[in-house]
């Protein structure tokens, strides 16, 4: 019996066809499906508990008005956490951006320039955060606790602790563009949230930057060995949090046409909770924009929902905690099952 002759021609292979199977889909998107499930379950719970409120559109427009203020910041923050870092200074960046806003307006009389100034401030503070972490090697948790205090202090010192009316912004185009109502009913901040969510999704999933973010968070050593500029990528991630936080600060202030030096206080835990509720791992390398987006809406709706179904506001924190812990357990379980 003659031995098999190997064909000289190039080996044929099956071209890659992504087969769809429900099991594979569930395993790949497990975390996101999980948090969507929690959201839907909560929603049904609220509707059943208080149909009058949750079956009419009013409360949803209220959510669309208030949730974006912190949800917007949770999105770039997700990328920072995926990269293995964290940023606790963003509430102070919100306020610091507004200090620049009011100063610039005082100097130039232009709301547009003031807005630009705020964004540049955010970019700069983010860059500074990045430098402290990357060039000096300070862990981001510690570094941003420090900068959080520093910039809040700067806000108080520069603003002399004063609050201020922003009524003059109503005269500018910037006001309706940022906080107006599309078609008279949809709050613009919701539109901006969707725009920023779409942009961060594309950046994270379809751009080299996002690919590097995941790799750096997964194994910074491997990333370095393979030539990724991990320092530059992380600094850019902090800068994104900076500029978006400044944006959120302007939006939140214009919404009430008033600047409080305490702007941002109280947003820290809510924003962080959205990120982790959404399935981002505190160890890095794992996380999704969709998860954070849903997480923000869960966090944002619990307070109103709790009160609407008849429990007192005291229950809010209890339920926050319950849902957060439950969801994080779910994400960890899903991740382990996928392995």
């Amino acid at each position, binding site marked *: 019996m003659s031995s098999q002759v190997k064909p000289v021609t190039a080996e044929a*292979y099956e071209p*890659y066809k992504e087969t769809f199977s429900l099991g594979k889909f569930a395993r*790949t998107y497990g975390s996101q499906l999980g948090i969507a499930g929690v959201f839907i379950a909560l929603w049904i719970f609220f509707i059943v508990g208080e149909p009058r409120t949750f079956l009419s559109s009013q409360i949803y427009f209220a959510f669309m008005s208030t949730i974006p203020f912190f949800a917007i910041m949770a999105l770039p923050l997700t990328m920072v956490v995926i990269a293995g870092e964290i940023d606790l200074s963003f509430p102070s960046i919100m306020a610091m951006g507004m200090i620049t806003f009011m100063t610039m307006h005082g100097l130039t009389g232009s709301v547009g320039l003031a807005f630009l100034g705020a964004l540049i401030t955010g970019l700069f503070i983010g860059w500074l955060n990045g430098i402290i972490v990357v060039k000096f090697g300070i862990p981001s948790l510690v570094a941003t606790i420090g900068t959080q205090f520093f910039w809040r202090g700067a806000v108080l010192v520069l603003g002399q602790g004063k609050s201020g009316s922003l009524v003059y912004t109503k005269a500018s185009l910037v006001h309706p563009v940022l906080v107006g109502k599309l078609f008279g009913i949809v709050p613009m901040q919701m539109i901006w949230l969707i725009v920023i969510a779409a942009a961060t999704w594309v950046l994270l999933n379809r751009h*080299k930057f996002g*690919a590097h973010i995941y*790799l750096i968070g997964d*194994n910074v050593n491997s990333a370095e060995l393979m030539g990724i500029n991990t320092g530059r990528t992380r600094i850019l991630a902090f800068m994104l949090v900076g500029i978006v936080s400044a944006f959120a600060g302007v939006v939140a202030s214009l919404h009430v046409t008033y600047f409080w030096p305490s702007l941002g206080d109280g947003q820290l835990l809510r924003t962080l909770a959205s990120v982790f509720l959404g399935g981002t791992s505190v160890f890095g390398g794992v996380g999704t924009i969709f998860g954070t987006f849903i997480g923000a809406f869960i966090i944002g709706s619990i307070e109103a929902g709790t009160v609407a179904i008849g429990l007192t506001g005291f229950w809010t924190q209890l339920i926050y905690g319950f849902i957060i812990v439950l969801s994080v357990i779910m994400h960890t379980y899903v991740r382990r099952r996928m*392995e």
Partner: protein
Amino acid sequence: MNYCLELKNVCKFFGEVRALEDVNFRLGRNEVVGLLGDNGAGKSTLIKIITGYHQPTSGEIYFDGQPVEHLTVPKARQLGLETVYQERALAELQTLWRNIFLGRELSNSWGFLDVNKMKEETHRLMTRSMGFTSSAVSPESKVGKFSGGEKQGVAIVRALYFDAEIIVLDEPTMGLSLKETEKLLNFVRGIRAAGKSAIFIDHNIFHVYNVADRVVVIDRGRVAGEFQTKDISLDDLMAKMIKVAETGSLE
């Protein structure tokens, strides 16, 4: 003789620690050089300088006779050098295609990824080069799940895909089964057969002797000696290695 890689008087100090001192190293065309030496001798440091991960404290590096000023990892790759690291340089939570294209993602000029092409290429490499036939493994599989040999396969295929002229292997047999080790050694022989060069570090003198044309012995940051494997028997080489470890010199 034209060397594809040359290091002249290279030193690397980490503060007080003199990891490498006055190292002269050459890699010829179509040559496999084995790098031998005890733990801490400086082999990995030498490799990291060659691959551009570390900058030499002093000394010169030449690729193909041309001096290279500031060698970085991307630059070394451009010059045709690929590395299979001891630590494998993989991201365990990420998918196979992300690992294959780690740091070299296929993208357009704006930086937007061509995910489909990367998955397609990964699939092609998997079936043709890595020999993954199991349907359980796909470009979307998380690399952390693979066995030691499979992870090594990923690191090697990754180096080959980008068509290197020089392939550096840092302790590639670590954690491999006998069969996987044999596959790896055949792979190194294949590199020479393909007309390329390789630098091969391994603790195991038998592996190195089996595939290398030339052996360079590093001890305490210096080149202690060099031998053509055809000119020395395995027993003599072993005796010399022991002597170096005990006395610090070959004589």
